[in-house]
């Protein structure tokens, strides 16, 4: 559907949720390439190109990160803090995808630079909405 291509990184430890995300993207007809890591530490390794992620052909740098908050080893907030501290990821779009309706999580996520805060499960409608705004961002950047 989108004229532009995003590279999506899903950081999600739950396999069901990974499935529901893939299903929702498919239903929303979003064909952009999707990379999945199972926790925050892997997300950081992916972004820095550590280990197996050094191969950027196989693991290209994402433009959009769907980030779960509650994860083993390193949670979503820690990932956002890590990203925030690096200028090279200033344009990286972070969208929190969580099951927490907690106000405090919501607030903290925005404070750490999240673009959106989506409650699970992701649906076709929300993803379509998100992609529309992402497209606007690209148009906007090109016009600069």
């Amino acid at each position, binding site marked *: 559907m989108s004229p532009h291509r995003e590279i999506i990184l899903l950081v999600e430890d739950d396999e069901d949720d990974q499935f529901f995300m893939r*299903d929702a993207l498919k239903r929303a007809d979003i064909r952009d390439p999707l990379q999945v890591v199972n926790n925050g530490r892997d997300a950081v390794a992916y972004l820095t190109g550590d280990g197996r992620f050094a191969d950027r052909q196989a693991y290209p740098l994402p433009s959009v990160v769907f980030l779960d*908050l509650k994860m083993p080893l390193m949670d979503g907030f820690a990932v956002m803090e890590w990203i925030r501290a690096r200028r090279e990821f200033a344009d990286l779009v972070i969208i929190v995808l969580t099951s927490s309706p907690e106000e405090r999580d919501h607030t903290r996520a925005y404070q750490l630079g999240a673009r959106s805060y989506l409650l699970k499960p992701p649906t076709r409608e929300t993803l379509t909405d998100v992609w529309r705004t992402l497209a606007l961002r690209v148009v906007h950047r090109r016009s600069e």
Partner: protein
Amino acid sequence: LRELGALATRQPKVSLKNAAAPTPLPDPLSVLSGFAMEEVGRYRAAFERSAVGMTLFDRNGGWLRVNDAVCRMLGYSREELRTRTAADITFPGDAVFGPDEAARLLDGRLSTYVADKRYLRADGSTLWVSLTISLVQSGPEVGECFLGVIADISQRKQAERTAGRFQFAIEKSTDFIAMCDLHGRPFFVNAAGLRMVGLADLAAAQTVRVADFFFPEDQRFIVGDFLPRVLREGAASVEIRFRHFVTGEPIWVNYNVVTLSEHGTPSGFATISQNVTERKRAEERLRDSEDRMRTILESLPHLVWSCTGDGYCDYLSPQWQRFTGVPAEQHFGIGWTNAVHPDDRPRTRLAWEQAVARGSSYRIEYRLRAADGTYHWHTATGIPVRNSHGAITRWFGANTDIDDRIRAEALVRESSERLAAALSASRTGTFRWNIVTNELEWDEELDRLFGLEPGSTARSLTQFIELVHEDDRPRVIAACRRCAGQGADFHEEFRVVWRDGSVRWLEDKGRTFFGESGKPAYMTGACIDVTTRRLAEEELREARNRLQEHATALESKVEERTASLRKAVVQMEEFSYSVSHDLRAPIRAMNQYAKLLAADFGPVLGETGLHYVNRIIRGSERMNQLTLDTLALSRVTREPVCLAPVSLDTLVSDLVAENPALQSPRADVVIEYPLGLVHGTPSLLTQSISNLLVNAAKFVPAGQVPRIRIWTEVVENRPRLYVRDNGIGIPPEQQARLFGIFERLHDGYEGTGIGLAIVRKAVERIGGAVGVTSDGKHGSTFWLEFQPVTT
């Protein structure tokens, strides 16, 4: 006096001169003179029988013939007389008719011989006579002879003698003696009188009038009043002043005046006036002195009194009357004792009676009632005054108000007794330290405090210092130096070691007093045993320390527990968080897969299969909602409360606008603005109000559009938000259970039974309340009560 006056006016005189004053006797010689001798014969009988003594003398004064009267007068017979000459029986020195006198009569140099003389009578007595001798013409028969007439003038002479004596007395008298006529013209003033009033002589006196002897202010009385009274009554007297004619000084006289009369007719006045000036002056002096004395007495603060010799009070000074407020007369006699305090009265009377009886001086103290009814202590002192015979004629006395003194004495006595009692009872020792000499006076109580035998008193500062515990000594010495050097007061607690080795704590306070030079002179102070207090203080300190330890331990325990509680809360939060996340993940997965199953494999499943899948979906949704509600309740419980004014208008209208179920035409919601401000926390307000709104829209009979009305009222100063619905209502008997957790009263409606529990919890946390009214048929009205906004 009358006689005297009469005599004085006659001025009798004995004179040998021819022009002598007339005699009262007839002159027989003149009768006989010129008659012939024969004629004499005719008269012989007369001669012989005459009552007047008649003689014939020869020229030598010899008796030729005497009549009987002469014999009677002289007490001699004729024969005895014939043998005697006149000189023989004449008082020696008196006149004697002899040849010389006869010769003078004969040659006519003398017409008549007159003499007053004394004869010596036969019995030796003398007789005053008036002898008048005339020459009888000589004839042959008788020859030369002289006729003598002898008149007995002894009575007259007696009178004259008396008058002379009076005259003498008058002249020598120191009294003022004078006479005047009825017109007040003096014709006699004696020498003393002249001297008294400063007149030079009688002539001077005769130039003035009686009135001139007096002061002008008295003259009218004398002339117009006094002298007429004398005339009327014959005599009168008055004490009055003469005025000295030269100096003008007053001369007080006792002016005695009698009427002079001649032949029964008043002819003038006579006076003998005594000079009483001295007496008057003495009286005046006495009066002055009395006045002065009285003035002195009455100006004294003392109450002065006087009594007669027998103790009868007859004078009380004005001070007495002022003090007692009782007229003096009522206290005369023994009446004054009525003003004496009843308790003092008997002994006061007794003392006074004894003093009077013994004539001893009198001194007593008693209480005397003052005009205001209070009693004042008085000292009464009385002394007797005795006459020359030693008899008491008067008592003089005075009362002194000693009330102040008595009171002061009583006060001093009481206060020193109190002080002594207090010092003794409190076992306070006192001392006086002479800073200059270092001498120390100290009492027996102090000995006891220092563990010494009473009386073994320390006499110097050094001795005192030696008694102090050696550890405290430097501090005490330093304090003493400060007192002596800078005049500081002394306040130290120190230990003393008694002989038995026991240690006592003493507290010693002293005040430094300064001498005239401004330097510290001495210190007085007191000392008490504070051992018990010190011990108590120590115990207290220990107790306090123990308490402090306890408190510290308790505090750390509290901290510990608080920390573990905090930890528990954190863990609880973590748990809730995990629940919200981990618990819901499988539910969501179940729900999600079921939905996928229904969507992607519906035709394969068939109707029954789809029904089951739908039951899974609904079950998982209910499970999800329960989890969310539980989390909401726990969030409401943990939510920090921060009260601030919140506008219900905005909050409620936003809540209504955000909830699709409250939008027309699905629901009919009426908000009655303004709803006003309440005191609350927005999140908790939101939780409570939104749940009520959701319920109001939910519990309506199927097919009925919910009608919701929202308004506020102030009930008992607190704002209440009302939410009224047209729903199914809540039966009154169930309303009590309504706000409990998991209480679901209605079947057929989606719900977890947690919503109203959240409402109650949220509103209670901001100090409010929730309630409902419903008849169970026609809808219900829920209300939330909040704290008012305080201005």
